[in-house]
C-alpha cells in the first residue's frame, strides 16, 4: 500500500503478463503514451499458464490489493494451449477465493493482445479503480507483512 500526499488509498496491483501478447501489449501502451496508474507493477512470465495460484496468494500475503493476470486471447496462445489451462485454473481459483469471502474484484483475468495497448491501459485503469473502491486487502493479508 502506498500513501500519497492527499492520503487517498493507493492500492498495490500486481499484474502477471505473458511475454508474447500482454507484456507486448503493455509495452505498446507505453509506446503510445497511454497512461495508467503507477499502482500497477508488471511481472513478466512466459505464458499466463506459468502463473501458479501460489504466486497470487503470495502477492496478497505480501500486501498486494489486487492481482490481475493477462495473457493472449484464447486461440492465440504462443504455446497454442497455455491460456486455456490458465482460464480453467483461474476460474476455479477465483471462484474458491470468492467462496472464502475474499472480494471477487481483487482478482481478474484479461486477455490482451500485443496490439491492444489501449485495452491494456484501459484495463489497468479500470482494475485499479475497482480495487481502490474495495479499499485495502484485509481478508487475505498476512499481518506480519503489513507496513507500518
Amino acid at each position, binding site marked *: 500500500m502506498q500513501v500519497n500526499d492527499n492520503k487517498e488509498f493507493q492500492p498495490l496491483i500486481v499484474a502477471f503478463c505473458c511475454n508474447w501478447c500482454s507484456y507486448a501489449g503493455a509495452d505498446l501502451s507505453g509506446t503510445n503514451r497511454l497512461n495508467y496508474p503507477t499502482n500497477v507493477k508488471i511481472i513478466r512470465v512466459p505464458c499466463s499458464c506459468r502463473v501458479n495460484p*501460489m*504466486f497470487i496468494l503470495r*502477492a496478497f500475503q505480501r500486501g498486494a490489493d489486487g492481482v490481475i493476470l493477462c495473457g493472449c486471447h484464447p486461440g492465440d496462445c504462443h504455446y497454442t494451449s497455455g491460456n486455456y489451462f490458465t482460464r480453467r485454473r483461474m476460474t476455479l481459483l477465483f471462484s474458491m477465493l470468492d467462496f472464502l469471502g475474499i472480494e471477487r474484484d481483487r482478482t481478474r483475468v484479461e486477455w490482451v493482445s500485443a496490439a491492444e495497448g489501449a485495452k491494456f491501459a484501459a484495463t489497468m485503469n479500470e482494475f485499479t479503480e475497482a480495487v481502490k473502491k474495495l479499499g485495502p486487502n484485509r481478508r487475505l493479508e498476512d499481518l506480519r507483512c503489513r507496513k507500518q
Partner: protein
Amino acid sequence: MQKIGVFVCHCGTNIAATVDVKAVAEALSHEAGVVISQEYQYMCSEAGQNLVKDAIKEHGLTGVVICSCSPRMHENTFRKAAAAAGLNPYLVEIANIREQCSWIHKDIATATEKAIILGKAAIAKVHLNTPLVAGESPVAKRALVIGGGIAGIQTALDIAEAGFEVDIVEKEATIGGKMAQIDKTFPTLDCAACILTPKMVEASQNEKITIHSYSEVSAVKGFIGNFTATIKKKRRFVDETKCTGCGACTEVCPMQKVPNAFNLGLNNRGAVYIPFAQAVPKVATIDANYCLKLRKGDVNEKVCGKCAAACTVGAINYHQQDEYIEQKYGAIVVATGFNPIKLDKYDEFAYNQCPDVVTSLELERLMNAAGPNGGTLLRPSDKTHPHKIVFVQCVGSRCDDSKGKPYCSKICCMYTAKHAMLIREKYPDTEVYVFYIDVRTPGKNFDEFYRRAVEQYNVHYIKGMVGKVTPKADGTIDVQASDLLSNEQLHIDADMVVLATAIEPDKTARPLATMLTTQMDTNDFFTEAHAKLRPVESATAGIFLSGACQGPKDIPETVAQASAAASKAIGLLVKDSITCNPCVAHSNELMCNGCSACEKVCPYGAITYQDKEFRTPYRTTVMRRVASVNPAVCQGCGACTVACPSGAMDLNGFSNSQIMAEVDAICK
C-alpha cells in the same frame, strides 16, 4: 555472495524526463548484493554496453540488472554484452522502466518510486538466476514423409532435391493417393494422371527417396532432429525386388470377384492385383482376404498356387511375413490426406439402396478412361447412358448436426462445376442439375470456370436443398428438392445422382497424432503451430504438415503446402545440430510423483516417464515412475509447473522462487 551490477539508462530523455535516474541508481545501490549501481545516457549504445562489460570484469559481477527499455527490445543486446565479458547471458535481467514506467506516467516522484520497485524486483530475481547453457541436439539427416499422395510425393521430391534422404510410407500398395483416382483437374481440365504419374515415377527413381508402399508407421519415438520411427511393411506375399510388374499373375488368378478398391468397388479385380497400370511401385500384391490359398490358413496345402506358377521370376512368396524397419529421422512430414465420409447416415439420398446414386469420387472413376467403363459415362445399375444427372452439394459438409462435418470441404463446388462441364461437353444431350447452398469459388480462374459451366454449358444451378432421393421402379430416381429462389418444391426424374460428399481426414491420422504427440482439432485435422504464422508446422517441433491432413485443400494448395513443409523440413535438416532454448522446464526426480499431470498439459509432448530406481535411506532401492523433460522439445511455457502438485516441475529462467522473489520485492 552475489555481486550484482545495476545499470540505469536515461534513454536520452525518454526515461530521464519522468524518472529521476540518479535517484533510482542511488536507491538500488543499497540493495543486498549490489556492488555497483550506475546510470548512463544510452545503455544500449556501444559505450553503454562497454560500461556493463567493464563492470563485469572489474567487479567480477555475478548478476546484472539493466533498468531500461522493454526486454523485448534489448534483452538480447545486453545478454550478448554480458557473454562477451564472460558472464553467462542468463544472469542478466531487465527492469522495464521505459515502456512500463516513464512513458506511461507523468509524475516524477511516483514514476521514480515505481522504477525503483521494478529495479528491486529485477535484483531480487537476478539473485536467484542460475547460469543457463543452451543445449545442442544433433539432427539426423533424413526425413520421413507419412502418406504418398500428391502432398507426400511433392514434399519428398523437394526434400530429396535439397540432397536429403527421404522415406515415403504409404499404406496402400501404390503411391499416388486420391489424385491418382481423379480424372481431370479444375480449372484447367488437364488430366490428373498426366501430371501426377510422372511425379510418381520421379519419386521412385530418385536415389534419395525410398518408397515403403503397403506399409505403415507403427511407432515413433524421440524428438526434433532425433526421431526414431518403426515402419511396418505389411506382407504382400510378393517379393518387391523380384516382381517386374508384368501382370501375369493377375491374369491367372481364379478369384476375380474382389471389389476393386482403386475403382471404389465399381468393378472387380483379382485376389492378386496391381492397383492400376501406372502404379508405383509397379508390384503385385496378394489380398490375403480373398486369395484361395492364403484363406486356407495352411499355405503348405496344395491349393491353387496358380500365380506362383505363372510368375517367371519366382516373386510370389506365400510365406512372407510383416517386416519392421527402424530408422532415424531428423524431421517428419505428415501427409495423410483425406477420404470422403461414409454416407451410412444419409438415408435420404438412397446411396446405399441405389447404385445410380454415386459419390463424386466414384463419378471420377466412372468417367475415367482407365475406370470400370473405359471412360464412357454409364449408369452403374444397367450400364445405360444417363440423360439427366442431379448433383447434390454439401453432402455432409457445413452440417450443424452430428451426421456430418461442421466445416466446408472446400473442393466440392469446383469439382462439381468440373463434372457438370465435362458431362455437358461430352454428352450434350444430358441435362445436369446442381443443387447448392451457395457456390464458393475463390481462387485463380475459379469463378470464371464456374460461370463457364453455367453460362456456356447451361448447367442448371439451383439454389436449394435436396430433401429426398427415391429410386423408382422404372429405374429412374426421383429427386425431391426445394428451389429457394423461386420458393417452390421440385421433383426431378434423374438417371443418376452425384453426391458431393464431404471429406474428412484419413482414419489413420488420429492414432498417428497420438504417436507423434501432435495436436488435432475436434475434426481430426492436424493443428498447425500457429494458424497464421506457422501454418505448415505442427506445435511439436520437427513435425510438419503437408496437404489435406491439416484441412481441406485442392491440388495446387496441397502442392504449395507440400513444398512449404518441405522447405521447413529442409531448413531443419541442413543444420548439424539445433540449439535448444535453455529456459525450459525440468523435473526434480526426488519430488516427482509420476502422476502424468504434466504430460497431459504439455502441448509439445516434451515429457516422458520412466521407471527409475532410487536408493532409500535403508540401503534398499525403490522403483519410481518419474517424469523427464526433453529440453530439445520443451518450449518453456510452464503449463506443467502449475499442473504439478508436488512442485517437482520448475522452469529455468522463470522459476517458482524467482517469480515469488519478484512478487515479494514488488509488494515490499
